[in-house]
Structures are given as C-alpha cells and as structure tokens.
C-alpha cells in the first residue's frame, strides 16, 4: 500500500489534515489502529487482509476529533459507516477526508462524501453465507429452542461493552445503560441483564448497522451477538426493501411508509 503511505505523507506535510487514521502492525500478528500525525508516521501504514477493525469508531472520539481535520483509510465497511455517521451529522466534509481502499485493495481518494456515497451504493450489504445458514437454522427452531439458545449463548457475557465500544454507530456520549433514572437495562451481568442489553443494542442499531462484524471481533468471549444485528438487516430487507446508508435519505427507523406491510395487527 505504498500509494496510501505516499498520499498520507503528503497530506500531513501540507497539513491538509492533522491526523491520518489507518492500520499498522500490532502485537501477536494482529493489526491495530495508527494515528499518523507526523509525516514520518505515515511510513508505518499498512493494509492487508488482517485489517478488519472498523476505524470509523474513532472519528467520533473527542480526543481524535479535537486534533482537527482527519483523513481515514477506509475499506468498504468503513466507508458505509462514515456515510451513516455523516447522515447522522457526526462527520462532515470539512472534518473528514476519505482515502478509500476498494475491495480490490486499490487506493481511491474521494474529494467529498457524496462521491463516497456513490461508490458505496455500487455494492449491496451481503450477509456471509455461514451466518445466513446460522440465521436459517435458528429460524427453523421453536421459539422455546431459540430462547434456550440465546439465554445459553448470552450467559457468558460479562457486560464489558466491548461490542458497544468497537461499533462506530455507538457514539452516544452517554449510553442508555449509563443512565439510572430509570435504569432501563440492569447493570449487573446476569441472564436478564445480558438479554435486555443485547436486545436494546439490536434495536438501537436497526437500520443503522452496516454488518462490519466489529462487535463480534471485539467480544472477548466470541458471543455470536452479530447474529442479532444481521437478523435485523435481513428483516429490514424483507419488510422495507433493504437499506443503504445515504447522506440525504430518511433514516429507516425514524420514518415510515403509509403502506408498510404487516400481518399481525388486529
């Protein structure tokens, strides 16, 4: 990814941006986030198949935003998150420059977010096959079977909130679980508290999640919590005709169509 490094170095030298957010080699063969602020830092930028962390989680972080204009090395999922964040007024053209990395690992710089939107709309959000199978397997179960599946799968959850921390869409300065008047979600990690937390997370991400798997990758217990948000994506496709992050379009769950179909309201 030499052209990414070259471009990042230029941007920092001309101080067109104050920080370039990208990937660098981490410990244990993993990659980690690099905040390149000095031109020579750009040399550490890398890109390969290990770079799956969603860097968009950092563009809403106070300590990073305060540095000034940011550039971000964005793969397709990161670009989708950026468009969704832009539509929720969290980032804009004047504080973010997108250095796109296409699915063919080519550098593609965008002058503004509407270009990024056009690029993102060329691809549909596709759930991976093995997760689709898992969803189908769960659908074939009885409700009691699914209840047992989820209470078992969620029982190791320790409420560390890494799933929330790694998700770019979870940028609220104070999350609903952090309010105690009323305490909607129980704080302790017992079966009820775990179930209601993951339920709430799936509801709050409906129509916003772009299926980047950051939550699953962050979970220290590999709980398949991303199945919940994937199910919501499939349902949105089935009920409302799919969803793509758009800069100007309506937000899926805060709008409606008079002819929304349903078969259960008496």
């Amino acid at each position, binding site marked *: 990814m030499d052209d990414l490094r070259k471009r990042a170095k230029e941007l920092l030298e001309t101080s067109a941006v104050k920080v370039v957010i990208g990937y660098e080699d981490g*410990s244990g063969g993993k990659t980690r986030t690099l905040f390149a602020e000095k031109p020579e830092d750009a040399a550490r930028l890398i890109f390969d198949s290990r770079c799956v*962390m969603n860097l968009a989680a950092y563009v809403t972080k106070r300590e990073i935003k305060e540095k000034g204009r940011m550039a971000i090395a964005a793969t397709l999922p990161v670009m989708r998150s950026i468009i969704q964040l832009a539509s929720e007024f969290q980032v804009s053209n004047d504080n973010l420059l997108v250095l796109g990395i296409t699915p063919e690992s080519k550098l593609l710089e965008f002058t503004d977010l509407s270009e990024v939107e056009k690029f993102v709309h060329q691809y549909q959000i596709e759930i991976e096959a093995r997760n689709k199978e898992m969803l189908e397997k769960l659908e074939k179960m009885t409700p009691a079977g699914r209840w047992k599946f989820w209470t078992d799968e969620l029982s190791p959850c320790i409420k560390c909130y890494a799933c929330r921390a790694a998700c770019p869409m979870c940028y609220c300065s104070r999350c609903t679980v952090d309010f105690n008047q009323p305490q909607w979600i129980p704080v302790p990690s017992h079966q009820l508290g775990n179930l209601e937390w993951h339920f709430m997370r799936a509801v709050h991400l409906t129509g916003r999640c772009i299926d980047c798997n950051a939550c699953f990758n962050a979970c220290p217990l590999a709980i398949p919590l991303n199945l919940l948000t994937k199910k919501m994506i499939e349902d949105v496709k089935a009920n409302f005709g799919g969803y793509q992050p758009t800069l100007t379009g309506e937000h899926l769950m805060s709008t409606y169509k008079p002819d929304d179909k349903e078969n259960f309201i008496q």
Partner: protein
Amino acid sequence: MNIDKHIIRKDSLEKLFDILRQNSKTIYAPVSRNSKVIFRKTDNFAEIAAGCIQTDISSKEIAFPRTERLLDYSRSADGISVKGFDSGDIPEIVLWGVRPCDTVGIGELSAIFNWDYKDGIYNNRLSKVTVLGFSCSKADEYCFCTSVGGNPGNTAGSDILFTRLGDNGDFLAEVLTEKGIAVFALATGFFEKAGEIKKEEFLAEVPVRFNLEVLSNNLEKFFESGQWVDLSLKCLGCGVCAYVCPACACFDIQDEAHGRKGSRFRCWDSCAFSLFTLHTSGHNPRDVQSQRWRQRIMHKFSYMPDRLSVYGCTGCGRCSRACPADMNILESLISIQEANV
C-alpha cells in the same frame, strides 16, 4: 521449607479427576467454547482444554464472581426484612488446570479484599476453593510473569501444583497446603515418591521484559507526562482489560427491585468507564480516556505496591490478548520504563 514432592502417572490424572467428582466437588476447569477457553463447571475430563497456554478469562470468578447477591430484602405490611449473603449455599469447588499467574492473582485480590476491612463474602467463597495449579510448559509473546516477580512454575496460591515432565510425560505434584494434603489423602494410591527432579527443565521460557524497580521509580515522576495521551489514543473505553484480569477487584453495587422483593448486587466494574468516577453534579475527575489508562497502570504498578506491598499485575498478558484495540499493556510498561523522566 521442603515441599512434599510426588509423581502422578499421566493416566492417573483422569482418575484423580473422577475421585474429586465422586466426592461431590464442583470442578471448574478450562473448557473451550465458541473458540475461546473459559473456566466452566465440568464433570467430563475429556472436555478440559489442557493444551491452552492461558484461558481467555481469569479464574477470579471463583471467589469474586461477575455478579453476586450481597443481600435480599422483602417489604411487607410490617416493614422490611433483609437477609444477608448466605455462605451455606456455596459448593465445595475445585479449580482445576489454573496457571500460576492466576493463582498469584488470587493473592493480589485477597490483599485488596482484606485491607483493614475483611470481606467475609470473598473470604467465604475462597475458603471453599481448592486450587490445583498446572505449571506452564508453553508461553507466548504476551506472557511477562517473570517481569513482575512470578515464574511459570510459581507455587504461590496453589494447593497442589502439577508440572508435566515433558510433552507426554507424567506429572510432578507439589503438595503445598492443608487443602492440598486433603486432596492427596483422597487419592494417595496415585501419588508416588518423587526422586530428584529438575523442575525448571520442563517450564516455559519467559524472558524478563522490563525492570520492575526502574518502572516503579519512573512512574512516580511520570504522572504529568504527555505520553499518556499517545499511549491511550487507541483505547475504546470498554471493560475487557479489567474483566479478564486476575488482579482487578473494582466493583459496583447495584440494587434491583421486582415488586416487593429485590436484592443488592455486587458486580464487576472498570476504571476505563467514565461512569466510574462521574459525580452526580456532572463533574468527572477522569474525563478523558488517557486519565483512565493512566489510573489502570498507576494503580497496579504504583499505588497497590505502595499501600498493599503487592503488585496489581501477574503478567498473564490476558488484557493485551483480549483487547479489541490491541492496547498491549506490556508496550506501555516498557516505554514508561525506558522514558528518561
């Protein structure tokens, strides 16, 4: 002090496991689940993930569970009746297959839970646990127990420490405490007298990565350094490092009511969360993530040794293995130790 050394044949280990089960012991052992290895209650020897270097979550849950009831209350016409924690319903637990850096962690937790005020609940749970430790024959780049005063064959905190003699060999069993002798008594037939054995030959190679004294001295003067910001820029502010750590004891107390009955819970908490220090007035003494990352390192490597003469870290490397942002505490410690303060 001469430790009571024995040999137990490799195929007798399973028999020891079964004897413990027959003596109505609840056995917690490393079991793999969803590609992660965690301590779970098991009664199937084959299920134990013996080959893992380290479990993904520490074994502190045995004595300091993620959620436990401190008291239950119920309201009625003539007032409130409150029933405290009942130690009666804690079963006898055997912690099987725990590594020395976890057993050392139990000592560090006990230092906090018995600092002046004796936490009866914690002590009660711990008194019911027999720790059967297994030395490490393998280590990875995240392990640094030797840098914080530990070693892969450390007996501290174990009741019996088993050390495998070679990949497919038998086990050296060092019986260390009363509880260890009790287990030994249950299965004397399987233990044979051990001759001269060089235990070090079978232990993992864990290089010392930093000098603890230099680190502690540097930390005294490192508080105001601007490096904390750079060190913690990647931190996402989740609770993984505190919850997987064998030596983190911070907790929250929460009440829950369901109709006229309810309970008061103790549950894990982390200094990485902003809610940990937020005042009702809105003032937050630690408002930025770098202050919280600084608190984590200062507490473990400066405040705890100063007040409790025990470090708050066993060098198990779990926080770095599990961190979603790959913060790697070892790198922070090494760069602080090398900083010319």
